[in-house]
């Protein structure tokens, strides 16, 4: 059995009080409780404060380009579908720069868990507005307040085909761990949007803000209904934040549709022996 220590890399450089600390511990705890080890997990990190977890979390990993963590994870999963594959990225990275990949990742139902750190700002570039910020949010890049409506990642994921859509809060570690474990266990594209205060740059979406406005979905909530789930996701626009699994369905993952991968992973296959049959097209 691996331990939290096995997954623990360098001392994090996050600001004291940053929500990333809690998310980092929750990811490690969930992986340990799942019986995984740093050698059995692949994590594709985005670029930003969340992506900097690359040095703090031990695992096979890629710390790639801003916005592109998901396609790297998709390529990895297609090549080695037996390995647990996770994306760690921020809201600007995943919903802004990489928005197109998010859309198509949902459609494809790739067997990948995306843990998205949603703090409504770009922390690493010192506090510009992120796509999830409320309309009118004032930042260095939007001094008069942002004109656009915020992205609603949950309703987007539900409608575009993600098969596991959940929300957690960085201030509630036990709930975060349980939600992440469920996401890791899910076969298909799972997304956990983690509400995360940025103590340095975001003075609105603070710990007290989320404590006051978030609530846990009760035991009676059934996550198998798309319309109900959508209703929950839309509460975001009234500053209400449901926590837990909003939506879940079983649908074959992308790689399960590929006959090439039915017997073994792509990386472990031997070279095809007889390609002579390809030449008939050219005679």
């Amino acid at each position: 059995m691996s331990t939290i220590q096995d997954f623990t890399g360098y001392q994090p450089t996050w600001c004291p009080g940053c929500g990333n600390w809690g998310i980092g511990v929750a990811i490690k705890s969930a992986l340990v409780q799942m019986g995984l080890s740093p050698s059995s997990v692949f994590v594709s990190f985005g670029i930003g404060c969340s992506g900097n977890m690359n040095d703090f979390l031990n695992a096979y990993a890629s710390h790639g380009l801003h916005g592109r963590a998901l396609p790297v994870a998709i390529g990895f999963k297609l090549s080695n579908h037996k390995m647990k594959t996770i994306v760690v990225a921020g809201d600007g990275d995943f919903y802004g720069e990489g928005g197109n990949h998010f859309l198509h990742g949902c459609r494809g139902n790739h067997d990948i868990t995306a843990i998205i750190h949603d703090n409504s700002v770009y922390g690493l570039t010192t506090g510009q507005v992120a796509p999830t910020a409320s309309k009118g949010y004032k930042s260095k890049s939007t001094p008069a307040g942002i004109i656009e409506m915020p992205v609603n990642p949950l309703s987007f994921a539900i409608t575009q085909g993600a098969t596991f859509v959940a929300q957690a809060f960085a201030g509630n570690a036990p709930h975060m761990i349980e939600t992440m474990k469920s996401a890791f266990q899910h076969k298909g594209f799972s997304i956990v949007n983690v509400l995360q205060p940025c103590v340095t740059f975001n003075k609105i979406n603070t710990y007290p803000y989320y404590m006051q406005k978030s609530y846990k979905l009760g035991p009676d909530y059934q996550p198998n209904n798309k319309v109900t789930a959508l209703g929950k996701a839309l509460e975001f626009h009234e500053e209400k934040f449901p926590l837990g699994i909003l939506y879940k369905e079983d649908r074959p993952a992308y790689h399960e549709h590929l006959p090439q991968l039915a017997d073994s992973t792509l990386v472990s296959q031997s070279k095809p022996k007889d390609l002579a049959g390809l030449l008939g097209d050219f005679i």
Partner: protein
Amino acid sequence: MSQYLWKIGGEAGFGILTTGTFFSKIASRLGYFIFDYIQYPSLIRGGHNTYNVGFSDEPVYSLKQTIDMLVCLNKDTYTFHKDKLGSGSLVLYDKDEFEIVDSVIKIHIPLKKTLSELKGQVVMKNTIALGASLALLGADIAVLYELLMSQFGRKGEAVVNVNKQFAEAGYNYVLANYKEYIKPLLVKRENPPQLVISGNETFSLAASVADCRLYVAYPMTPSSTVLTVLAGWQGKTNMVVRHAEDEISVINTALGGSLAGVRSSVGTSGGGFALMVESISFAGIAEIPLVIFLAQRSGPATGMPTWTEQGDLLFAVHAGHGEFPKIVLAPGDNDEMFELTIKAFDLADIYQVPVIVMSDMLLSESHRSLSKGLVEKHMKEYKPNRGKQITAVDQSPYLRYRITDDGISPHLIPGAEGAYYQSNSYEHLEDGHTTEEALDRIHQVDKRARKTQTYLKSHFSPPKIYGDMDGAEIIFVAWGSTKGPVQEAQRILQGKGIKTALLHFTHMFPMDKETVLPFFNKEKRYILVENNSTAQFGKLLRMELSVDLKETILKYDGRPISMEEIVNFILK
């Protein structure tokens, strides 16, 4: 025999491509070498399509301009191409559809009448015309029947028979009415079996032979057929082929495959390649193997999508921000496309770098003869060289970016027990963790740069010489697909007593100065031939070798350079 040029033209969407390919395959089955070229607008219906096939009993490197037989399925074909007819050229047309008043050799084929008599669809005009063409060249029609069987057999005997009926009608009409024009130019001869294959198909075949297991692309002319061909082969090759949402996803998905230890590749053209450039830089610093197939077309921006150009050489050479090693290869024909593509996959693994294989519309979409024996030999004998790829930890701790003399670090396939590491787009320490320390930065930059030195020593190939450099008065300098027209021009000039040599480059970048410089120290007339407007390879030679070639033949109207243009330049 000298090259014979057959050309068919008609409205887009009426089966010109299929008929042209059929003609090439028939000539090849009869023992002749072929080269064909399709011209079409960026439209699906409407507009003018033509298909040109040159055949000969010796290899055809490029098409001549004079048309020997022009098959006109509509009036435009005649109007647009009559100025390319020679004195003995034949014009096949249907006088019930349009009149030709010029004094050319007119071969009337009753296309319209036959269609109505035999109740055929409009596309059958092609088949009638093909039958007539074969009759005029003395070919055995049975070869066409065999081809129809192998191409349409799975659609049922009825489909085959309908086609046969129309082909036969055209064939017999010529035998009955134009016996005096029949020349025995396509009579069966012995020749080692050849494939009729395009550059894109050759790349696809080579990638399959090279054990590429993940191909990712977004359709873009003229690279798209690699995607569709490889997608169609998945059942036979077990390759995973993914049509991703955009080119940025394409390249990052492929990089993910490479990270997992699978040979991966992407294909695109200029605009798509532009979107991939940031990720090429990622592959550079994170040392991820990748083969990028770049089929050039006329740019900039959307440019002329279905036409040819060599306009992206310097872009490819410089693609990616920051400084990192990459390799750029540019095959000049199908043999080189096959062998260099396989080499590209080895190089990507050995040096853990992006390798760009450059093509262009001319090379990508033209069919040429490719020795079946050569392909089968590689299929049988080729074993991938994965370089320093390892599947278990070789020393503890495992260091992904270990400093080595040759610049290459062992690449552990993720999943190995007892280890983990990150591939990092940030500058990093030997173990992969991020760093901003000055000395570590220098060590890693130097380590990566040493891979270039190792490559130049171990795998760089100097230009190939065609002809005798010492005996020649003119030395042509070319790269990629302009090889063919120059080779054909050399044949013509030889016939006129002008001795030439061709210095043809395929290993474009990086270039080994010491090896290449001596090729340029002869007291000769050097002429640079490129399908672009700014002599990009000339610039690269100045940059890399301080060699300045003053004389150039440049063409940038979207059409390939012709052998006649080169010959005329010399004779002017």
